[in-house]
């Protein structure tokens, strides 16, 4: 016989309390998540495919290409990463195309936690929030993956230390992974508590918080119903962004999964007026694909989401393809990989 749903009290995360009421328990969370409307996979994928057929030309395309760059978390997450590699990544983030200085800077560089000091040092004065009152600041943030990325298989103590370490070293954004094992076995409360705790670990000494991106690793959740539940869960627990993937598991970001997560974010906004960000990561390599994501954002949650506080691409090779397309638009002929820098 299945054990009864535990009724243990959960940490009173502010959003969850607002949505589910004050006496937040594992049971109330589970009932809420299980009560979400289902997803029909065929219909979702057809809608995503339909959005993918939108055709973007000339001026819209130039706008879109620059927008993609501004939304990129330029990423290096390799066991072989070195300070030199990170410096080179930062250089690319600051000057994506040395032959065309009109190319905008990316939103952030995304590195492992121990590389944060190197990224911060390399950015120097250019380190900061890419968005300011006038829109674009020209600054670049530092994002760090944490919580025993990518598997998440470590004790909460280690995950929190990992997070706090990155934040104290100057990370502006933390990309955490959820415990997929706990989620798939129905221990939603555990996943929830971990996100709440990591969020708290994002707190800086001055009381401000590093922005928290919650990676669902949709490739391991496998069903769209799970993706919807995990998205809600991550938002309820206080995530500033919901992110598809670590990039280490296939499939990583797909258009249908991103569409579904945008629909959750849209529904959250309809309910609360509060905007949550979305970050598809992994597998988006071409401008053509990235434009499909922009279209999907614009037609699902609206164009106001196309800014670095609400949408990011987690990518590495995408940037160079965008630069090649930019060169094509400005010169009228196709460019080649020898005309963008390798980093």
């Amino acid at each position, binding site marked *: 016989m299945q054990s009864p749903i535990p009724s243990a009290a959960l940490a009173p995360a502010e959003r969850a309390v607002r949505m589910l009421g004050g006496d937040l328990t594992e049971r109330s969370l589970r009932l809420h998540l299980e009560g979400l*409307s*289902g*997803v*029909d996979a*065929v*219909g*979702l994928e*057809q*809608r995503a495919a339909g959005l993918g*057929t*939108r*055709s*973007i*030309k*000339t*001026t*819209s*395309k130039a*706008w*879109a290409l620059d*927008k993609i760059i501004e939304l990129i978390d330029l990423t290096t997450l390799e066991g072989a990463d070195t300070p030199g590699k990170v410096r080179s990544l930062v250089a690319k983030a600051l000057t994506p195309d040395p032959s065309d200085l009109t190319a905008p800077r990316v939103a952030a560089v995304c590195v492992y936690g121990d590389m944060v000091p190197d990224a911060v040092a390399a950015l120097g004065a250019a380190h900061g929030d890419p968005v300011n009152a006038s829109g674009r600041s020209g600054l670049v943030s530092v994002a760090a993956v944490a919580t025993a990325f990518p598997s998440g298989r470590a004790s909460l103590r280690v995950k929190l230390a990992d997070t706090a370490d990155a934040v104290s070293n100057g990370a502006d954004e933390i990309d955490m992974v959820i415990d997929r094992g706990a989620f798939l076995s129905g221990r939603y409360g555990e996943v929830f508590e971990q996100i709440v705790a990591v969020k708290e670990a994002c707190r800086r000494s001055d009381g401000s918080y590093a922005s928290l991106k919650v990676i669902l690793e949709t490739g391991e959740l496998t069903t769209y119903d799970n993706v919807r539940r995990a998205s809600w869960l991550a938002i309820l627990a206080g995530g500033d962004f919901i992110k598809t993937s670590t990039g280490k598991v296939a499939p990583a970001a797909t258009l249908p999964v991103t569409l*579904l997560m945008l*629909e959750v974010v*849209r*529904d959250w*906004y*309809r*309910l*609360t*007026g509060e905007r949550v960000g979305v970050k598809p990561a992994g597998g988006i390599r071409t401008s053509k694909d990235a434009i499909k994501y*922009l279209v999907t954002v*614009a*037609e699902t*949650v*609206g*164009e*106001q989401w*196309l800014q670095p506080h609400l949408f990011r691409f987690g990518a590495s090779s995408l940037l160079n393809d965008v630069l090649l397309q930019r060169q094509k638009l400005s010169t009228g002929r196709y460019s080649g990989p020898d005309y963008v820098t390798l980093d």
Partner: protein
Amino acid sequence: MAKDIVPSDLAPAGATGFLDYAPAPESTSILHLQKSYGLFIDGAFVKGHGRPFASISPATEKHIAEIATATPKDVDTAVAAARRAYDKTWSKLSGADRGKYLFRIARLVQERARELAVAESLDNGKPIKESRDVDVPLVAAWFFYYAGWADKLDHAGLGANPQALGVAAQIIPWNFPLLMLAWKIAPALAAGNTVVLKPAETTSLTALLFAEIVQQAELPNGVVNIVTGAGETGASLVRHPDVNKVAFTGSTAVGREIAKAVAGTGKKVTLELGGKAANIVFDDAPIDQAIEGIVNGIFFNQGHVCCAGSRLLVQENVHDEVVDRLKARLATLRLGDPLDKNTDIGAINSREQLDRIRELSDIGEAEGAERWTAPCVIPENGFWFAPTIFDNVSTSSRIAREEIFGPVLSVLTFRTPAEAIAKANNTPYGLSAGIWSDKGSKILAVADKLRAGVIWANTFNRFDPASPFGGYKESGYGREGGRQGLAAYLKAGK
């Protein structure tokens, strides 16, 4: 759900550069049209003896080409050609060879797909993304599917060695001009019949391009004949004494006339007529997909679809949420140039049809239903009607009973499955219906009780050559598609 956020909050910002996608018009340069088109009889284009008429683009009202009118005498010539072809060549060919001709046609359609799509959108007004991604691929699929049947008729379900009927008179509507042609011609030819087909007056163009394909496929002369003209041409074709089969797709009123005209003549008849489909949304529906399905159900092809989900039946406890979300979604639809790849809603096919949609919509308003129209800019020229929803429609309202054949959705509510079924069936029509629910047993039980020929569950407006299509009650009789569609052109062997 909370209603403090109005749907327009989620509508695209519009004014900024991105969502006003730069125009992406499909090039018309691949299309080589003639100034005027004759009738296609006995393998050649010939002059019609009636007064020619102009085919115009409904999006711009610009002249496209001059189309011939077939007189009763022309119809006579066409039927005689079809009879000759039937007697002398087509009925003597092996099924395998008939199949090979149909495979050729399927391939030629695939090869000329883009050209046909452009012509269809130009002449009919439907968005290029629909003609390109739905109509024309289905045309090829239809010929491909029935090509395979031509030498397998023993498996068609009529026993061994079934026989063709002879000459088929086929009359098709303007909403899916080339697709309806394929639905008619492919099974008829596979079964061994020859045909005389009359396209709708406002959309003859792709049928005439198809005649070129028939020539390129080297189909024997007279096997396919195409006569253009208005209702009188169709009437003389239906009444022609040497016709063995009448297949008609169009309005129930004309279908009724045809059924009367052929009474006692021994002609076999299939009719695919109007509809007023219920699209039933239960409270356990996959909500975002249901919204897409509602949109696709009624706004696909500007609602010029006989099986359109024109009556939205929503479970009362989710009515507000569904309507809210629907309005937000409709605000992202793009109405405009049918040849623009980003257009979702094209032009209404004719002024006459536009007038009818306007008239019925005004009646709906007068009868007290709540009218909501999607915010969109209507082009100056051409025939246009913005996507429109009528909420709080009563079952007795005319917009809940009559086929509008346009982008107009009537929203009604129900409380229990039994009520949904009763309301869905409460119409003289019975072509199609939709059911939205995550619960399989409910879907199957409701589907069982609906009096309609096609039931879509968690999808809408899906078509496939392998799937029979056709209506109950005043939506007609006979089926097109699948084995059943083949049987409509066969009789049992002796």
